């Protein structure tokens, strides 16, 4: 009986990681769509989104089933609750990837100008946060999860700097408004990807240590 329960937990974890793969791929492609101005990538990101949505429903159903039929306790209960929350975060990451891709496509209809923001770097950082938080989830590594919480500050800071320099650019050269506005939106979406990675990391800490560290970074660090 318990062995079957263990197996169900493993399967749930496997499903969540497959879904994570799709979300991570979507983020990577959306950044690539911005960098290369390749519109075919936008379509691919949108297609991935529907796969992500389907997986989200499947994982939720499987997790709720386990809660109802097995009535897990302590660490197992926390694990399933974390899966449900991480699932929602990953689905949002997929949505944000679509937003970024659509903004990137919109930018293609305007001149390719030099913007004072390094979107690819920010994207790599946000994607790395997601990846690290998932690695922490795979190994149940609370210490690694804590390191993700620290990275978030860096992404936030780049986002604020991007906002400042891009709004200055708009003031100085109103012609660049469409490009600059889209870049602001993309930076903001990436910052939110970072936030979701932080959520995932917090869920891992909750699962492993049974401690709620949300909205309280210093307690975790």
């Amino acid at each position: 009986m318990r062995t079957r329960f263990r197996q169900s937990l493993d399967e749930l974890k496997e499903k969540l990681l497959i879904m994570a793969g799709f979300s991570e791929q979507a983020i990577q492609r959306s950044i690539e769509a911005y960098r290369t101005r390749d519109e075919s990538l936008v379509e691919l990101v949108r297609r991935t989104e529907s796969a992500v949505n389907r997986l989200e429903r499947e994982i939720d159903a499987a997790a709720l089933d386990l809660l109802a039929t097995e009535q897990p306790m302590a660490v197992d209960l926390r694990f399933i609750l974390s899966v449900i929350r991480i699932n929602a975060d990953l689905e949002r990451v997929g949505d944000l990837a679509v937003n970024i891709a659509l903004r990137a496509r919109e930018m293609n209809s305007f001149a390719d100008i030099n913007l004072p923001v390094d979107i690819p770097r920010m994207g790599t950082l946000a994607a790395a946060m997601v990846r690290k938080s998932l690695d922490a989830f795979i190994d149940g590594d609370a210490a690694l999860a804590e390191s993700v919480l620290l990275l978030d500050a860096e992404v936030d800071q780049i986002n604020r700097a991007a906002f400042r320099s891009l709004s200055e650019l708009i003031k100085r050269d109103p012609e660049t408004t469409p490009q600059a506005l889209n870049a602001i939106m993309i930076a903001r979406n990436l910052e939110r990807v970072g936030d979701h990675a932080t959520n995932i990391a917090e869920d891992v800490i909750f699962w492993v240590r049974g401690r709620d560290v949300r909205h309280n970074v210093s307690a975790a660090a």
Partner: protein
Amino acid sequence: MRSVSISWLVFSLLLVVAAAAMMTGMYTSGAGFGAKFAAFACLVLAVCMALAVLRWRLRSESTIFEELVATAGVGPSPSPEFGSLPRRLAQREDEAATRLAQTDESRHQLEVLLEGMQDGVLGVDAAGRVQWTNTQMTRLLETHGLGGAVRLGRSVTHTLRDPVLLAAVHQAVENGKPVEVRSPTLLPNRIFDVNAAPLPGGGAVVVLHDVTRTEAVERTQREFVANVSHELRTPLTSIIGYVETMLDTEPLQTHAREYMETVLKNATRMSRLTEDLLVLARVEDADRSLRMEPVGADELLQEALLLAEAAAFGEQALFQIDRTTSVNVLADEHAVGQVLGNLMENAAKYGGRSSDERARVVLGAVLTPNGAAVQFSVRDFGAGIALEHQERIFERFYRVDKARSRESGGTGLGLAIARHLIEEQGGKLRVASTLGEGSTFSFTLPVASPGLTAIG
């Protein structure tokens, strides 16, 4: 023998018991010394007999055992039929040791090979768990995967989550078919060719080959060719235009006219070459998509035939349509027309037995035996192509006979373009040829499923 000894044993034991009983009786009844001594002597005799029988029996059993050992050939006097056994056993042992050493050695070689590879390798079992890996794989993950690690004994998803890779592994493990895909999302900013091959005992080997550099070089090259061709075409158009006008309107001296005609001929050839280069650059650009629609196989052949007869090379050959099917194939009509036109032009140019003889070219379109595709063929009865050239003719600018190609005005790009166009439509362009008998170029296109109107 045994039963005799047993009865002797029983007999002597009875004797012992009787003697003992007698003695007990005599001592209790107060018999005389003589009778007591006789009874005691009887008891001693009976015990001695019993011991003798026991000893003899034990001895006879050990003799049997010794005989057995001797017969098996292990003992001091081996019987002839088992005599070679020890030697053979020793020989087998030696062989086993040698084989073990060989296995160890080849295992070691494989390990060295695996470690020396520039590609990342993962061994996955039938349940999708990573069983082994090489150093390069770990290094790849450390360098680009931001400190990720290969997690042995656990599902692949615990190491890599790229959907393209997972799909390939799944297909190789579940369907037992090798898969080759390109993934630009495996690791950040890298492009990988993923090869997943099934293992005979279940599971699969996954090889990750980094093609980021190659891809970048190829892209630059394609863009360069496209740009240069475009730049070359513009001045050529005006050269050709002015020469043609001059030839048409200006009164020229004979040799001046000859020179102008040579200029026109070569400028036209150059123009064709740049045109082909542009087409090649376009077909090699993965972003371009073909318009795939259901179209009758026989229609494609008829259309190609009409165009060929109207073209300049139409004069050089006699075209016939052999067997055709009216089944609909899923194809880009324009692209197939281009391929057929190219194959027919080649057949017309090189398919004649001599340069003045008109070549005979036979076209065909038949359903493949499984009914899933239609095989198109263009056959000539010319000199044929030697085996060593057969694969290379599909390379860009490869010529079997340089002088002849120059004379015929070919650019050396036609078959490269044709192969690309067919592969993009999910088919394969092949050649079968025998020297002195002619060549057949053939390609397959998938049959359009009924009810399918168009695919983007």
